[in-house]
């Protein structure tokens, strides 16, 4: 009896189990992830869209449809306009530095020596620290009078330095902190790209008596150009969402000079508890991020054509 059952199972099994078939129970492979994906990413995305048309009272649990009022209020809000400008400024302060400094470090450290390995380790190390630790370090560096920077510049007669309290310099100071924190990533991406350039191209250039400058400009840069584009887009996406450094170092001040879009969303949503208004701002961020992601997709697709 059991033999019969077993053999019939084996026969039908072989019939059904061709290579490219499936059984509905096998949907359980993707089911756990799909539950989290829909419940905690897709649904909130839709909910946020709906909330952006509502006046929302989180504590009373009441929602009231108010049409485009949140958006009207948002686009005429001086502080939000300022936050958009600050965010773009921050991207401009940081992204070119990430690309240029990251590439220079990679060019200098692309060699098999112990000191180059040590310096690579060093430049990437700050990357593994949390934003809280990084800002703790840099707030101490920027402290008026007691701080490292004030001490250092004091030697040159610069007194009374309070850089995070200065509307003209606070955002740049946060940009420097951010570059210190994140330079390791562009460095390793450039290093990986440099190591893929075939050595014989350089040999050929040498035989042609190409100068180092010509070699850099006509061989190295074109070979890694796609990585330059990729690093630029990755950093634009990352820096556009700057939040932790700002919230911890200046809380958007002084005089709103460092308030970024995410900082604005955070304050509207979780300081003023205007969830509908914050959701409207989040939709603006979402649209910009989707455009940037499309750009990244396009850039990484192009890679395969070559």
């Amino acid at each position, binding site marked *: 009896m059991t033999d019969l059952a077993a053999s019939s199972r084996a026969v039908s099994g072989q019939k059904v*189990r061709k290579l490219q078939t499936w059984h509905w129970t096998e949907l359980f492979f993707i089911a756990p992830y799909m539950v989290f994906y829909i419940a905690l990413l897709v649904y909130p995305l839709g909910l*946020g869209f709906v909330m952006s048309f509502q006046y929302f009272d989180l504590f009373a649990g009441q929602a009231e449809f108010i049409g485009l009022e949140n958006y009207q209020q948002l686009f005429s809000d001086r502080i939000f306009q300022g936050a958009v400008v600050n965010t773009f400024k921050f991207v401009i302060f940081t992204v070119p530095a990430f690309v240029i400094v990251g590439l220079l470090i990679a060019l200098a450290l692309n060699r098999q020596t112990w000191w180059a390995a040590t310096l690579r380790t060093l430049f990437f190390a700050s990357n593994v620290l949390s934003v809280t630790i990084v800002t703790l370090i840099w707030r101490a560096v920027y402290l008026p009078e007691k701080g490292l920077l004030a001490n250092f510049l004091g030697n040159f007669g610069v007194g009374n330095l309070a850089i995070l309290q200065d509307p003209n310099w606070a955002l740049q100071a946060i940009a420097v902190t951010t570059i210190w924190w994140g330079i390791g990533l562009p460095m390793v991406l450039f290093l990986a790209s440099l190591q893929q350039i075939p050595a014989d191209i350089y040999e050929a250039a040498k035989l042609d008596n190409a100068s180092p400058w010509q070699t850099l400009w006509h061989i190295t840069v074109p070979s890694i150009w796609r990585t330059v584009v990729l690093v630029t887009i990755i950093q634009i996406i990352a820096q556009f969402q700057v*939040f932790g450094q700002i919230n911890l170092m200046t809380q958007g001040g002084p005089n709103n000079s460092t308030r970024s879009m995410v900082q604005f969303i955070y304050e509207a949503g979780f300081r003023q508890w205007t969830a509908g208004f914050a959701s409207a701002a989040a939709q603006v961020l979402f649209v910009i991020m989707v455009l940037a992601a499309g750009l990244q997709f396009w850039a990484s697709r192009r890679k395969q054509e070559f």
Partner: protein
Amino acid sequence: MATRKMSKPMGEQILVASVVILAIAWMVPLVWIVGLSLKSSLELVVDPNSVFSFPYTLKNYADLMVTSNLGIWLRNTLIVTITQTVLVVAISCLAGYGFARVEFPGRNVVFILVLMGLAIPQHAVIVPLHKMFNDWQMHNTFQALILPGLSGPFGVFLMTAYFRAIPIEIEEAAKLDNASRFRIFWEVTLPLAVPAMATLGIFTFLSAWNDYLWPLISATRPDMYTLTVGLAATQTNIDQSEGLGYLMAQAVFAGLPMLILYIFFQKYVVRAVAGAAIR
């Protein structure tokens, strides 16, 4: 090689020298805060420059063990980070195998819909997410800290690509033995995917450990703080603080575990972070 004999070009020497100087500048803040953490706060108030001279003391670290909540926050962080990492790797492996091998109708459409989720930034859904966990009365719980981290599609994307690259012939022998699909997955294919699981695990661990925004709004009770949020809460008055040395001891204490892990597993950490960035 022939290049060894040639003298290095001038431009390159300048480049290397500048990067070495830059590296020193990079290290100065770290060395300085370690120095601060070893000084008594009283001495620093009198003379900030005393950091460059003896005597040094471990008193700040001793105080840390007695007075701060770092122990609780470290425990919370470990619970959240380890649980999240294990769950993300598990469900990503399952889903990755499903998308790579199970040819259910509409698979490609569903997969593309999942990949589109890569473009959704956490910051864009943070307000509705907070409302949902508020409705479920789940804030200030470990579930609230862990669950949102499971929705990101990066792991599924990574594992699907990896499983697709494993030749299907490897599974065919097992299929002839009429093993169930899950057994094939568990015994044949999954062991081959360990490198990808390591990459995903390290990346998830790092981002969960360093996450700031979600724990900031979800964990509002100090006993539920993670390290990042707890440390953030203690540094609000740094400008007035006379305990600069104590604050910096906290930073060193909280940063050290990650730095040590990084130095031991550098190759894997770098690969994980770079792999996640370029997806």
